[in-house]
């Protein structure tokens, strides 16, 4: 091996090591808080809130989870969150996909304006909108209701879903729809029999995105809900009392909030990445 090549391969080894170290550093930064939250939820606070925390495996137990998952005042926000996030995700994607299909396929005046307005809306910080939203929901009697929260979330999330799906639908060749029309489909038939089946991956990705967005929101829910309709993130925040901080319960509730998100990401990761449209046309 020549000296130059050895030099290059040594550089290659160094850059690989540096790269791996950077990945490990970033992973620690991201994962350690979750790990510590898990540990906190499993151990008595008295063992952790010391200068020399005692992380003993033998002392770990799931008692806090048991308490939380049988406590009606915790189950209510859990149920609310599940309901709000599911309905929000499905509504955003059903409405958003129809809108996106229309925008992708038909050339109408104001098409660009609609797209830009939807994007523009995303640029307004939630902080600016939340007080007007509070007043509007109060006036229509939807304050502190799950319905009010759903409507609000759909308003925030659907535009992003539309943007995601317009790009996808524009990539579906028009000839596919024309072939289906000639084969005997109506316009709606084309949507149901051809476009929907090949859009599976994109729609699933959009549903998961919408679900996670609604599920993990704290700020809007904090302002718009109080008693009956509070969601999990709000409940987690509530563990921080005026005089006491229930670290262990807060950590367990945090983990419970995190689990669905992780599960969704793990289960559907392949789905989201796989390109079903491969082979639609020449290629």
């Amino acid at each position, binding site marked *: 091996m020549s000296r130059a090549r050895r030099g290059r391969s040594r550089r290659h080894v160094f850059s690989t090591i540096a790269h791996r170290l950077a990945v490990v550093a970033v992973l620690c930064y991201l994962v350690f808080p979750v790990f510590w939250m898990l540990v906190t939820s499993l151990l008595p606070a008295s063992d952790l809130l010391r200068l020399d925390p005692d992380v003993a495996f033998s002392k770990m137990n799931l008692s806090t989870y048991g308490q939380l998952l049988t406590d009606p005042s915790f189950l209510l926000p859990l149920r609310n969150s599940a309901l709000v996030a599911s309905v929000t995700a499905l509504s955003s994607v059903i409405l958003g996909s129809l809108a996106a299909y229309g925008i992708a396929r038909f050339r109408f005046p104001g098409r660009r304006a609609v797209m830009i307005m939807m994007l523009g809306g995303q640029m307004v910080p939630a902080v600016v909108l939340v007080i007007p939203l509070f007043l509007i929901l109060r006036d229509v009697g939807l304050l502190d209701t799950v319905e009010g929260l759903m409507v609000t979330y759909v308003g925030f999330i659907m535009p992003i879903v539309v943007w995601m799906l317009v790009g996808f639908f524009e990539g579906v*060749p028009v*000839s*596919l729809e*024309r*072939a*289906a*029309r*000639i*084969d*005997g*489909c*109506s316009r709606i*038939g084309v949507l149901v029999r*051809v476009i929907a*089946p*090949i859009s599976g991956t994109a729609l699933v990705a959009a549903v998961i995105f919408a679900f996670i967005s609604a599920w993990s929101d704290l700020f809007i829910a904090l302002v718009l809900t109080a008693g009956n309709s509070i969601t999990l993130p709000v409940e987690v925040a509530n563990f921080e009392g005026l005089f006491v901080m229930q670290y262990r319960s807060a950590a367990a509730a945090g983990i419970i909030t995190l689990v669905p998100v992780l599960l969704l990401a793990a289960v559907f990761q392949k789905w989201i990445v796989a390109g*079903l*449209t*491969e*082979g*639609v*046309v*020449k290629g």
Partner: protein
Amino acid sequence: MGDIELRNVSKRFGKLEVIRDLSLQVASGEFVTLLGPSGCGKTTTLNLIAGLEDVSSGTITVDGRRVEDLPPDRRDLAFVFQDYALYPHMTVFGNMAFGLRMRHTAKAEIDVRVRAAAVRLGLEDVLDRRPRELSGGQRQRVALGRSIVRRPSVFLYDEPLSNLDALMRDQTRSELKRLHIELGATSIYVTHDQEEAMTLSDRIAVLRGGHLEQYGSPRDIYGRPANEFVAGFVGKPRMNLYDVEVGPNGRAVVCGTVWSIPVSVGLSGRMRLGLRPEELGFSSEESSGSVQGTVRLVEPGGGTTDITVAVGPIDVMVRLPGFSNLGIGAQGWLDARRAYPHLFERDGASAGCE
């Protein structure tokens, strides 16, 4: 079955008129090609016949029945797309059966027809595969199969060969012709490739700018082009076209040269003359009516050799049989004894013999 008539059809997209007052008749069982450069409106014409676009004015009839207001599936026609347009989520069988299923054909009947089509097209081993697992040629055959199982009275083809490689294209072209002879269904075929048009068609419609330039058999289009555009578009290599001065003696003199070619009497003045490269000769000996020239370029093609000969200020393309030993700079005599001279009216823009 399958008489098609377009009468005074126009199509506008906003202010842009893509098809201008197009009238065209296609007899039952005929294979007609719409030929023209890109943007000439040939695909739009096909879409209008299929019902994928609505006509702006004019009528379209199939077997004497007005169809321009019918949806595509009620016009009894099949469409083969340039990009195949196979349904990616269905198997080959599913793709071919889809049109029949939409028409509520009995299951057993679907099975029989799809399998028969698959055998005819050599697809019986891939019926369970998805389109993405097939080669380009196989995909195009699935697209063909999807059309033939429905037994429509009209087939519409939109540049179906343009995505295939050269070898596959020739093979599929022959297959298409054989299929047409077997099925006998009316076919309308869109292409910008004059060779495809010549080999496949009973009649060719040459379009330019949404306007029909000429409609006739391949022999007519090649032998009697109606105008300079058709003459230049059909034939390979391209026809040589020059400004000429036609004298009362019935001879056309190519502007800027001493080359004169006998043409039919009764015409005179400044015109355009077309000479097909394959009808010209180039030899080392002078003959009557020949003119001296210098070889500027030699392009061997195997069975033939194309040479470019400079005669004064003009270049003349000549197609010679076999391999030629001529080199660049060789002198020789160009003769047009075997050539049929095509004369066209000069349009206002051409320069003439100034």
